[in-house]
């Protein structure tokens, strides 16, 4: 964990990689046709997107990364077959305050509950705390996203804010939960 030689982007079963403009748009396009995934990953309205639209969004994203300097984005791939299985992000970095937000999504239901999410989160947190030298990482989660909440709690995140009835979905209001993890808390759980 504290070894320069230990790769930042390699885990037992997955790796972080860059966007593949040839192969990824088609796969991510499939994810966007699955409303359940979209509603877990994003608070914006779910909408199906063609591979062409996804490709344009990648271009916009890479431009934003270049210009804003407060965003890092990784594609998550299964090591066995180099298949795209999800994406991970550190965003809204405030360099002067040492804080940022994280996002993580596993695209297909078949790839969930296989510890891919946990391996990705472990890498993402090491990247945030040991490479970007953040002091804290924040994660926003809708109260109905039980899988994400369980994963964050497993990694030592604390529920800090409950924004009551912030979201409207399925004809009712839902709370938005804000979780936080501080550097020393990360160190403790990473060493354990």
């Amino acid at each position, binding site marked *: 964990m504290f070894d320069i030689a230990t790769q930042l982007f390699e885990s037992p079963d997955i790796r972080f990689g860059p966007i593949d403009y040839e192969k990824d748009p088609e796969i991510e396009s499939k994810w966007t046709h699955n409303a359940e995934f979209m509603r877990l990953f994003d608070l914006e309205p779910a909408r199906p997107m063609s591979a062409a639209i996804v490709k344009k969004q990648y271009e916009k994203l890479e431009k934003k990364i270049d210009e804003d300097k407060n965003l890092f984005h990784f594609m998550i791939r299964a090591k066995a077959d180099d298949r795209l299985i999800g994406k991970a992000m550190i965003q809204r970095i*405030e360099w002067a305050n040492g*804080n940022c937000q994280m996002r993580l999504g596993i695209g297909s239901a078949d790839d969930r509950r296989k510890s891919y999410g946990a391996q990705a989160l472990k890498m993402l947190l090491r990247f945030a705390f040991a490479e970007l030298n953040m*002091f804290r990482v*924040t994660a926003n989660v809708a109260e109905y996203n039980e899988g994400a909440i369980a994963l964050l709690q497993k990694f030592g995140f604390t529920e800090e*804010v409950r924004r*009551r*009835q*912030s979201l409207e979905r399925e004809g009712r*209001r839902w709370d938005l939960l804000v979780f936080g993890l*501080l550097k020393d808390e990360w160190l403790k759980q990473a060493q354990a």
Partner: protein
Amino acid sequence: MKDLFRGKLVRLTSEEPEFRAKHEVNWQRDTEFHRLADSDPAELNSEKKIKEWAEKNAEGGFKPARYPFSIRALDDDKLIGFIGLWLDLVHGEAWIGIGIGEREYWGKGYGTDAMKLALQYAFMELGMQRVSLGLHEYNARALKSYEKAGFRLEGRTRQDMLREGKRTDSLWMGILRAEWLALQNG
């Protein structure tokens, strides 16, 4: 119908960019004000740049969903600050940011009065379900003002700010449509 833009102490206005910039360039020099109102590092921008920013952003409206106002005191008609709403139209949530740049108007109810107008605007004109805001834990005056306007504390993000070498929390507050309506009848 109530006057949406006139309270007991202040009114909400839209100012000419040159006029707003003249004031804002002074407010920006007050780093205590900046550090109470903002989490980004303090900046000093030219009057020209602020004017251009005001020209671009003051228009606001439905798309993008942003409603910025200036605040004038009713007694002397002085421009004393700003307040703005950013809307999430899908989820019916508005975020509010406020700053009283003129220090002589701190702690006298002007900000609270502007906030009450902004809440009335959010619920009665924009049809929001909820209004949210954030503040620094060291801004006790703001906390008191927001509580007076009807906001409830919903939590704190621990040590997310670093100022003067000290870690401090941010506080997060919200008010629901039903809570605001109950206050109007109470």
